[in-house]
């Protein structure tokens, strides 16, 4: 990619700094959540202890319930379900992070779609596990809703873009509640790479006057 030399990026580049007040209120809660969760995870006992307690005698043979993939030891073989749910959870969480933190409205919508994908994977995993179609049905409707959402959302994004000339969600922070602090942008350092130098051809005839800066800064041929 050629570096940015768009005037917008020089004058109004920004470094996000949420206000100190907001951060002071949120930090303890977040830190507490993370610590509590890690503690929870560490406190979880290992799997081996549980499976030992399974009463094998009470379980019918595997052939009776082919949909449930019963293993001989009587534990439901839910590996596919487990892994599918794990993938779904990861996708959902990644989508959540994206929609919380990115400022480009299109990328935010991509993140929302990512969350929908996570949900779809989870639903289909359960559908496979239970051997019925309910989950897959729901995914079809998720697809429908996603299509509707994308259509309407894109229209709004386009409208917003045509008003501000940017895809920045923070361009609309005046819509926030008045008690919430504003995000103040600071200047960003320029990207590495410097200015691209374009080859200059030998002139034929009388050379017209050029705008040298425009020649150096153009990004298209």
């Amino acid at each position, binding site marked *: *990619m*050629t570096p940015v030399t768009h005037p917008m990026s020089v004058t109004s580049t920004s470094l996000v700094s949420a206000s100190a007040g907001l951060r002071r209120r949120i930090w303890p809660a977040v830190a507490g959540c993370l610590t509590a969760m890690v503690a929870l995870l560490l406190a979880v006992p290992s799997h081996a202890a549980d499976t030992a307690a399974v009463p094998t005698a009470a379980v019918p043979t595997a052939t009776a319930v082919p949909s449930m993939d019963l293993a001989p030891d009587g534990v439901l073989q839910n590996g596919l379900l487990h892994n599918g749910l794990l993938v779904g959870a990861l996708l959902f969480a990644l989508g959540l992070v994206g929609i919380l933190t990115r400022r480009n409205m299109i990328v935010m919508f991509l993140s929302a779609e990512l969350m929908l994908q996570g949900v779809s994977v989870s639903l289909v995993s359960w559908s496979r596990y239970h051997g019925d179609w309910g989950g897959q049905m729901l995914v079809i409707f998720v697809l429908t809703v996603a299509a509707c959402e994308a259509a309407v959302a894109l229209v709004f994004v386009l409208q917003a873009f045509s008003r501000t000339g940017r895809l920045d969600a923070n361009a609309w922070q005046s819509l926030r509640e008045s008690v919430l602090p504003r995000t103040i942008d600071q200047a960003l350092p320029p990207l590495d790479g410097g200015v*691209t130098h374009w080859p200059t051809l030998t002139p034929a005839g009388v050379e017209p006057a050029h705008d040298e800066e425009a020649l150096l800064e153009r*990004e*298209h*041929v």
Partner: protein
Amino acid sequence: MIPSLETIAALVKIGLLVGGLMTAAAYLVLVERWMAAWVQDRKGPNRVGIPLTKIRLFGLGQPLADGLKIILKEDYTPSHVDRVLYNAAPLVILAASLAIFAAIPFGSVLPPLGIDGLPDPIPFLVAPGFSVGILWVFALSSIAVYGVLLGGWASNNKYGFLGGLRSSAQLVAYEIPLGLGLLGVVLAAGSLELDVVMTQQANTGIWYAFAQPLGFIVFLVAAFAEAARLPFDLPEAEQELVGGYHTEYSGIKLLLFLVAEFLHMVTAAFLIVILFLGGWHLWGVTGSGDEIGWGTALIRFGVFSGKVLAVILFFMLVRWSWPRFRFDQLMNLAWKVMLPLGIANLVIVAIVEEFRPQMTEAMGASAAGWVALLLPWAVFLLGWITAGVLTPSGTDNRPIRADILEDDGLFAAEHALLTGNGQVTTENELSNTANADSSSGSDA
């Protein structure tokens, strides 16, 4: 680890298919050049034969020479491109257009070979039993849009970018009539598997082109547009517009783009034959069951290939018969003509399929069959005439002067000054104005 026989069979099929397709694409380019020459009263390429000899073989060595030439050309990458996507775009489009053939059968079945571990009979299909074959074709043809769009964007060139947007808009728009034309067949055949669609036509003996004429036309037009063939080759449009999304490409990457476009045409021909022209079926020649001997298998393969070749020749003949559509006409055709016609076809097919049992019960099998055949034809004629009468911009190429007047404010003002009002003037009014009679032409 020794792979199973089925895996080996699948690999052999893939090898045959990819090798055959690439060779066929090369030779179809030669055929296309011949057709172009003959239609223009020329002789066409007929020189290149066996190298270092005087043997010419009617120019059959030409594809080799063409390929060598374009491969050996300098693979020039402009400095302003986005390198990753610039290199990825041709690969994406070629991979997508080759992977489509996983779900497309290229014949009927081989007679049983009697080898343990192999299914009997062996179908001419890389992924047999893939229950969503048609959707697969659809999905991969929509992936091809990415190659076009990214190639145009990554070129970082305004002409390439505009070309990319232009052609992806076309591809996305024509996916809808394509799907509608296809849905009629899916509804009638009751399956998303392409070989089942062929078997259905062979069993009834009625090709879907005859049972659903409207669907056939809609699918045919959409297939032309999806394959970016003339009269819809706006993606390239060498004569009127700058090359398009592959303006900045050269050498082997350009070759990949061109081969992919050619494969799109081949895919379209396969789909047309499979969905609407009966696949390997020909009345009285090929039979209909799966229990066949070597002779019938060969005949079926021949019939199938012959049909595909005929459709491809039709594609090439059409190229030299009609002028290119303008972009607004292209979009008009997709949204205002083909979409309603496709929906009409879908509705009539649904009605026929829904009430066929009742009709059979009421008036007997043969009469019901005739009704089921004639009803779509009636809808076809009706829909066609309606479309022709109601959508003049689809067929009428004349410039609309009132629009010009509205668009250009200065022009309109001047014109109003000259003629006394803003209306389009006829010859008489103009001559009156020239006579300096300021009161003439004032009828509103």
